[in-house]
């Protein structure tokens, strides 16, 4: 018998997971909401210091159609237009709903304040001061979730496999970090809301739990992934001097509000050399800016830490203070005075456009298995527009939760003890086969992160990707079965890291195989051996696991019928 049971199991309790849990409970389902960290405190949402893009039209005239056009343009022709349209259509109501639930969006003159951001054609991005959007929305959702008795929250429970029976998702098995036990959970519907994969890369803006587990869980359960080659490298992540207490991507809102000059190691502006303009504004899209910075570094015009300088020295202190108040003090505590010093910034893995392949009701091809938030692939195509990530978390979370609740009728409950036992034995093997002279899982994770950064990062070649694939294969076949796992019972992070590493390897392989097969450069996927965009590659790649092998295939992008789009 399973240890726990609910109609809907939500895996991951960031923005998408909490929204999904609320939506499912509001439709009458019993919900278990689990997170390997602490519910409402893990994941990416809480780290977002910046903006949420929604066509509220409160700052200036805007429309869902315009937001969709901007999103599709940023996606370089590869967006799943149904998912992108859903994001744009439902965004405004979610933002207003969050305000009713207590989020205090920055306001002026009686309306929600909306700022310009790169790639948007109007002022569309709302936020919570000061650089507090993520913590504020996470607090709102945590409070809301805790007020709903039908939602059972479980922290420090890491889901490590989805259980299936006859091709249907029936539950999950999870590591309870507190006592080291493997726990089984029966559920009629499961929602993967465990976020992205940026922890696969050495330079990242990830939290501890962005190892791509949602993708691996989906693959192993029989679902498909899509667009896995499109990892967004955020161009101006903080590199130096060492800065603590701030999200490394904190400079984005500074640039929205204040501009700031992006300079190479020789203190020259350079974005215009790469087919875009910047000039103290913030116009270049993320993929072009990331590309330009790394090309300058490669040409020997980088900064000491391998990036570019960001310069606000021309902006008066009073202006800095009125825009960012207490944040200026936090910078001072790190010895950074923007009126006197420049900071070093550079690309880091920040977001994954690809993910679990779902239809517009967030359903995977596995019955009972849904996805939400960054775990979902397709809405953002080859490049995500800034501000769309939190919108996507709320919109897809709400959709997944309500659809899952309708499908999760009590009578559909199934359990398969044999499937659970097989899973348990496989997982117990990690502890049982621990090698005294083996390598610690976290050490191998670090090697994988460096491998992915060097060989499958912002600039790719067929040769580098092939080498990455060989090493990933070797890590899985040779190293993974011979890890050194501590014998500790409580909070055994070695065991957690081993399970996470297993997922990271599957997800990394999906990224590399997709990147290898896409012989062109488009959006966030840059092949140095195929530098041009190839019209023949205006297709999406789907990844699936078949007889133990990861296979990729091409499909035509999901398009909206245009009259429907303009009607939206």
């Amino acid at each position: 018998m399973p240890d726990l049971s609910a109609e809907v199991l939500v895996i991951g309790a960031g923005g998408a997971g909490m929204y999904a849990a609320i939506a499912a409970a509001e439709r009458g389902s019993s919900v278990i909401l689990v997170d390997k960290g602490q519910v409402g405190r893990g994941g990416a949402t809480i780290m977002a210091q910046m903006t949420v893009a929604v066509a509220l039209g409160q700052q200036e005239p805007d429309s869902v159609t315009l937001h969709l056009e901007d999103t599709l343009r940023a996606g370089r022709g590869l967006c799943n237009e149904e998912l992108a349209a859903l994001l744009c259509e439902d965004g405004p109501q979610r933002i207003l709903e969050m305000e009713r639930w207590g989020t205090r969006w920055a306001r002026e003159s009686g309306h929600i304040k909306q700022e310009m951001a790169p790639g948007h054609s109007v002022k569309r991005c709302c936020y919570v001061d000061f650089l507090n959007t993520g913590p504020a929305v996470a607090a709102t959702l945590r409070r809301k979730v805790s007020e709903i008795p039908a939602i059972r929250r479980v922290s420090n429970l890491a889901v490590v496999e989805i259980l299936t029976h006859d091709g249907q998702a029936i539950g999950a098995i999870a590591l309870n970090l507190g006592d080291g036990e493997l726990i089984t959970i029966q559920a009629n519907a499961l929602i993967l809301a465990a976020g992205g994969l940026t922890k696969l890369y050495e330079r990242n803006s990830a939290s501890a739990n962005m190892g791509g587990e949602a993708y691996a869980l989906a693959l192993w359960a029989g679902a498909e992934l899509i667009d896995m080659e499109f990892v967004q490298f955020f161009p101006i992540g903080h590199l130096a001097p060492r800065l603590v207490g701030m999200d490394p991507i904190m400079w984005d809102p500074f640039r929205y509000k204040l501009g700031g000059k992006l300079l190479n190691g020789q203190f020259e502006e350079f974005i215009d050399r790469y087919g875009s303009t910047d000039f103290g504004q913030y116009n270049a899209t993320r993929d072009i800016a990331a590309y330009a910075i790394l090309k300058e570094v490669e040409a020997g015009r980088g900064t000491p830490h391998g990036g570019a300088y960001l310069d606000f020295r021309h902006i008066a202190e009073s202006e800095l203070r009125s825009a960012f108040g207490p944040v200026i003090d936090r910078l001072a505590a790190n010895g950074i005075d923007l009126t006197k010093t420049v900071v070093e910034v550079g690309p880091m893995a920040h977001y994954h456009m690809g993910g679990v392949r779902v239809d517009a009701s967030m359903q995977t091809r596995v019955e009972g298995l849904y996805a939400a938030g960054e775990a979902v692939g397709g809405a953002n195509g080859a490049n995500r527009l800034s501000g769309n990530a939190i919108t996507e978390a709320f919109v897809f979370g709400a959709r997944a939760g309500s659809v899952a609740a309708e499908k999760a009728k009590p009578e559909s409950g199934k359990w398969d003890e044999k499937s659970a036992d097989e899973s348990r034995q496989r997982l117990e093997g990690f502890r049982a086969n621990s090698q005294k002279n083996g390598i610690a899982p976290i050490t191998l994770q670090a090697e994988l992160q460096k491998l992915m950064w060097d060989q499958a990062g912002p600039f790719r070649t067929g040769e580098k990707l092939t080498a990455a694939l060989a090493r990933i294969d070797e890590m899985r076949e040779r190293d993974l079965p011979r890890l050194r796992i501590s014998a500790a019972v409580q909070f055994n992070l070695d065991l957690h890291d081993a399970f996470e590493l297993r997922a990271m390897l599957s997800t990394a392989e999906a990224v590399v195989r997709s990147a290898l097969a896409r012989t062109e450069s488009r959006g966030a996927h840059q092949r140095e051996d195929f530098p041009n965009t190839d019209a023949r590659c205006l297709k999406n790649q789907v990844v699936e696991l078949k007889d133990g092998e990861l296979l990729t295939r091409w499909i035509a992008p999901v398009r909206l019928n245009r009259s429907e789009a303009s009607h939206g």
Partner: protein
Amino acid sequence: MVSQAHKTAHLRISRGFPGGEKHYDNFEVPYEEGMSVLDALRWIRAHLDSSLAIRYSCINANACKTCMALVNGEVEYTCIAKLTPVIVTVEPLPKRQLIRDLVTDVIPDDEKL
């Protein structure tokens, strides 16, 4: 002690679990100006002793608020507590039930199994 010549920080870390014997382990970590106590704890896990139990999520942003421990006797978020040029002692929160090493039970009762 942070030796500028060797750029090394020294940490003294409380180890153990309820009912077991508690002791302190000493670790030396390469020091970089501005680094946090959590940076050092993560470096120890990756390079010296992966069995060290610590709790954190957001790493750097001081957003998740889950990385608290006792640093030189004061309750601190380890992600923003800077390493200082003396031996840094890190211990679990004293008023919470110990789980293991630096991890204490800070999870609300209604979020537990």
